[in-house]
């Protein structure tokens, strides 16, 4: 050990910046089929290895291999493919709408579609999701009418949230989709609390908690792990590691030092690290964690390794902090292309059908946008009434708010 008289601070730095050749050498890939599938009732301390590899099912030949490969019904795979494609088309149209001034803000999930879509298909009706703003796939997977979502994005007269919330911070109780906060990670401990309540009442429903790599740094994440460890409630604790939190790479959440899955180990929570761009891997590992939860075996933490292929939101320009073509070098590919390849390999799909699907969904999304426009847009109105600003602060409007609404002229 060399002697040094001066201390120095370690400030993490990603391997590549704008102008550099993208470098993902830090991602250690496991082979498809390499990681074992522990029995669902395994003790957490007997499965530490699953936090360090990368569960992958689809190999480069589009085949499902290994212990995590299961006989998933083709209609589930096709449903998943359709939902992912629809989500991407919706995202693209909403980005365009933002540039046209029809909304102020939008958060897309390009490249991460498989995670939300596959997990939702593995859950049951009544299982509650506590999402971030990049899990719109949870809604699309349930065939929600797109016009409902777009009305919210446009903050128009049909917005189910009366214009109260930032565009794309949806809330749909009927789709088991908890209101998105915008303050990061607050929903993670809430999901644990919801799952505790389900256990207190002897229910059979489970919760699904969502957070990104960057916001695991919030103390809510730690609190959630502590409570999950202590009370062992039925909750799937998802960490979507898409490598970037606006301009900060995952090293600023401690990802250089240790991956996110293994954070479960200190709490004796079983931990999986999974290829988030592999629909089959997401579906099967989700089912495994859901089965554990449903059988009173407690929480599971899953790190989904993926890549945020688009900008953080419409207010972000990633070319300022990462190579503009970085997404092309992402070693886990594109989730839609990979599932499509698998379905073709199985003989359930072909290029012509895929083109027809894209065409059909493009028409569907366009029609939904048009319908939503009939309810108004942010730049042209009609918007929710000014008086609706005062609704739902309390169950019953207190006197001081009534007076303020009057003062405004309502």
């Amino acid at each position, binding site marked *: 050990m060399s002697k040094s008289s001066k201390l120095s601070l370690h400030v993490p730095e990603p391997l590549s910046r704008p102008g550099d050749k993208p470098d993902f050498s830090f991602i250690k890939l496991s082979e498809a089929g390499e990681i074992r599938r522990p029995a669902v009732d395994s003790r957490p301390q007997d499965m530490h290895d699953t936090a360090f590899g990368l569960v992958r099912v689809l190999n480069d030949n589009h085949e499902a291999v290994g212990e995590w490969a299961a006989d998933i019904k083709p209609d589930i795979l096709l449903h998943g493919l359709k939902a992912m494609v629809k989500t991407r088309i919706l995202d693209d149209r909403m980005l365009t709408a933002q540039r046209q001034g029809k909304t102020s803000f939008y958060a897309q999930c390009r490249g991460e579609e498989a995670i939300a879509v596959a997990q939702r298909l593995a859950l049951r009706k009544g299982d509650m999701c506590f999402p971030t703003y990049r899990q719109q796939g949870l809604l699309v997977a349930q065939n929600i009418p797109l016009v409902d979502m777009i009305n919210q994005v446009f903050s128009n007269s049909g917005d189910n949230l009366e214009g109260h919330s930032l565009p794309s911070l949806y809330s749909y109780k009927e789709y088991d989709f908890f209101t998105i906060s915008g303050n990061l990670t607050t929903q993670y401990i809430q999901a644990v609390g*919801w799952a505790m*309540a389900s256990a207190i009442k002897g229910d059979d429903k489970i919760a699904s908690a969502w957070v990104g790599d960057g916001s695991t740094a919030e103390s809510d994440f730690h609190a959630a792990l502590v409570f999950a460890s202590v009370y062992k409630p039925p909750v799937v604790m998802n960490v979507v590691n898409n490598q970037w939190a606006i301009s900060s790479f995952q090293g600023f959440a401690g990802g250089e030092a240790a991956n996110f899955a293994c954070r479960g180990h200190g709490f004796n929570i079983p931990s999986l690290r999974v290829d988030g761009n592999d629909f089959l891997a997401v579906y099967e590992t989700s089912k495994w964690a859901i089965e554990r939860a449903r059988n009173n075996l407690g929480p599971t933490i899953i790190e989904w390794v993926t890549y945020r292929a688009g900008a953080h939101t419409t207010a972000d320009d990633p070319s300022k902090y990462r190579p503009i073509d970085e997404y092309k070098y992402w070693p886990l590919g594109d989730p839609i292309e990979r599932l499509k390849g698998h379905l073709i390999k199985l003989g359930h799909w072909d290029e012509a059908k895929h083109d027809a699907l894209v065409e059909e969904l493009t028409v569907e999304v366009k029609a939904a946008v048009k319908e939503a426009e009939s309810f108004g847009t942010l730049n042209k109105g009609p918007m929710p009434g000014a008086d609706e600003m005062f609704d739902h602060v309390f169950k019953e409007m207190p006197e001081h708010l009534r007076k303020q609404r009057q003062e405004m002229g309502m």
Partner: protein
Amino acid sequence: MSEQTTSRKNMIEAIRDALDIKMTEDDNVVVFGEDVGYFGGVFRATDGLQKKFGKSRVFDTPISELGIIGAAVGMGVYGLRPVPEIQFADYILPAYDQIASEVARLRYRSSGQFTAPLTIRTPCGGGIYGGQTHSQSPEAIFTHVCGLKTVMPSNPYDAKGMLISAIEDDDPVIFLEPKRLYNGPFDGHHDQPVKPWSSHELSEVPDGHYKVPLGKAAIRRPGEDVTILTYGTMVFVAEAAVKESDIDAEIIDLRSLLPLDEEAIIKSVKKTGRCIVVHEATKTCGFGAELISIVQEHCLHHLEAPVIRITGWDTPYPHAQEWDYFPGPARVIRALEQVMEQ
């Protein structure tokens, strides 16, 4: 109305009684917090409840106020009526984001789809040699948040009736308990023997279910010359000051800060033409500023003198200097004399 039996209770017993009644009536009421379960709470408010209702409805938690409130929000969203305890109001700040940004706004940001009817119980105020971290009165950081109700009862009767109201309320309630009042109506004379609740009429508590509405002030002493707007421990400090000063003051115990009984305030100040505001919390941007603003807005032409605030000084709550800090009867008397001079 059928006749209701009553019992003498101190404030802790009244609070425990309210929890017991609501837990008996409603399976969805759950109680938890640090040391709350087996032990029954550091102030004994939950003593015996775990034994009676079981460990899944009354339980201890990790030392994580953020976790306690965050989990309570999730439970509320599920459909429970959680009554979490934060051991001292001084410890509530780690949970502030979950309170101010989350539970207060769930209804708003989801347009009524999701709500969490929490009642967050927490002991506040000083007078127990608790120093900076066991003495504060943080009510103003909650009254400033839209979507919260913030209340502070001053006696066993109100504590029970208001806690039942809070638990039944569908909006989140911050339920502040002045801990110096737990065992008696402390009037600020710290050098005199402690008076127990048993000698005070407000310790006569009905045995069953009753409610004291949130948003209604109580006139503790009617008077003609000056209005004292106060709440919590300072209600009894004000009573002592009035008794010792021979000034015919009207003492209003606000009980609920949000919603606030503006009508009671305005009516009284218009009648007396003078007003002082007394609270234990620090002065600058304290709740007294809001009260005075309301008074000047509605009663300016009735006022004979400027409104005076008697509060804790704008310092952290000190330990050794506790009784120099605590706004006791002597300061209130001086303020009463000052407003009466004009």
